């Protein structure tokens, strides 16, 4: 049974045809790494999955919640899809704990008393239990990104989308965030991540998607694809990175 089904999805920005018929099936617990050149449509695809970008054609389905062209009410879908961004996007006027509790309180109408243990558990999971009362700007980039992960987890999503979540970090902070993601993968969370961390994609991922000019150009087992890329485009992409 597929958790995420993406069927013939098209997306234009004006005259720019950015997604040209994407088909993708992702099962529960899969860890999918999306790679590809800048401008190939990786972020657009990811953002389409929770409706941050509207699609022009095709259908996306996550755990039974369908999303089609022109659809506007996305709240049911978004409750099942968590997202972590390159720029963390924590709410600066709220404490760390409040950042994590806000959506459960406001969206799920849970009481603060019910949210607090969940928030504390999620912060503990990302190794930041003691930062509950800190403000985001008192944290390092790596810590902020881990709070962002905890914030998404607090909604108990079925899938987590991660768009280059380590790209804005100083190199020495990358690993603490990747360690958290790896832990999620081990615990069985379904992850779809756009990443430039090829080693991470190969070691943690169990599916690799190579996007090229708005299409899924090649996909499969990461270890096999890295060792044995079938298309010249993927060959040169991997070659350019190594």
């Amino acid at each position, binding site marked *: 049974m597929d958790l995420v089904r993406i069927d013939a999805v098209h997306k234009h920005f004006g005259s720019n045809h950015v997604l040209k018929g994407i088909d993708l099936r992702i099962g529960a617990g899969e860890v999918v790494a999306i790679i590809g050149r800048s401008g190939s449509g990786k972020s657009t695809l990811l953002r389409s999955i*929770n*409706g*941050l970008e509207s699609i022009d054609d095709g259908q996306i389905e996550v755990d039974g919640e369908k999303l089609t062209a022109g659809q506007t009410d*996305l*709240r049911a879908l*978004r*409750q099942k*899809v*968590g*997202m972590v*961004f390159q*720029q963390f*996007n*924590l*709410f*600066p*006027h709220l404490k760390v704990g409040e950042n994590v509790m*806000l*959506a459960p309180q*406001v*969206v799920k109408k849970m009481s603060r008393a019910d949210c607090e243990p969940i928030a504390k558990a999620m912060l503990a999971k990302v190794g930041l239990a003691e930062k509950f009362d800190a*403000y985001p700007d008192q944290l390092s980039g790596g810590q902020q990104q881990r709070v*962002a992960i905890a*914030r*998404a987890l607090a*909604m108990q999503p079925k899938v987590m989308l991660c768009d280059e979540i380590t790209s804005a970090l100083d190199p020495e902070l990358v690993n603490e965030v990747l360690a958290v993601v790896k832990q999620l993968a081990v615990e069985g969370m379904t992850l779809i991540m756009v990443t430039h961390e090829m080693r991470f994609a190969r070691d943690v991922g169990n599916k690799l998607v190579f996007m090229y000019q708005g299409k899924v150009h090649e996909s499969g087992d990461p270890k096999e694809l890295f060792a044995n890329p079938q298309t010249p485009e993927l060959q040169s992409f991997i070659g350019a990175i190594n």
Partner: protein
Amino acid sequence: MAYHFDFIAVWEYREQLATGALHTLGLIAVGATLGVSLGTLGAVSRAWKIKPFDKIFTVYVEAIRNTPFLVQLFFIFFGLPALGVKLDEWTAAIIAMVVNLGAYSTEIIRAGIQAIPRGQIEAASSLAMTRAQIFRHIVLRPALQKVWPALTSQVVIVMLGSSVCSQISATELTYAANFIQSRNFRAFETYITVALMYLVLAFCVRWLLNKFGSHFVNGRKTT
């Protein structure tokens, strides 16, 4: 021939002055509360292009910002009765102040809303929050925080501008001044006294709004 200052002649009317000052404060208290609320609605309508309110507020803001306050006030008090809308002087004064401050604060608050990074709104959307929830929990407080000093200045400007409400016989502070100097013929003493009273009121309003701002708008102690 030297002029003999006679402030006793003003002091004799202290009750009128006190009442006038209180009325001016009352006007700005109500006017600022409703005006900034109206401005908040206008700001979000314009910033987020909420149809059809965005267009309505655009016209409203341009109309108000490009006409004199006195004319707006006269229109409401003397003009509207032609349409069967008869208002007493206080209602007219408050409406004029709300409408005026509403337009200016629409523009001020809109700048605050637009300064909120897009990524925060996207993050909130991705957490399944509705637009109204995002506005209330993510946008409103930081937006007001960013523009609070400008908003405070505008409130003070409108309070000082409320002196023209004396023209429709609202017994605020300037009305009291006009009344007193028509009795004691001491224009210098009367108007300098009232000017000082406005100065004190302006400082008080500023101080109050700063306090209010750091408590309720910032919500976070700035270190």
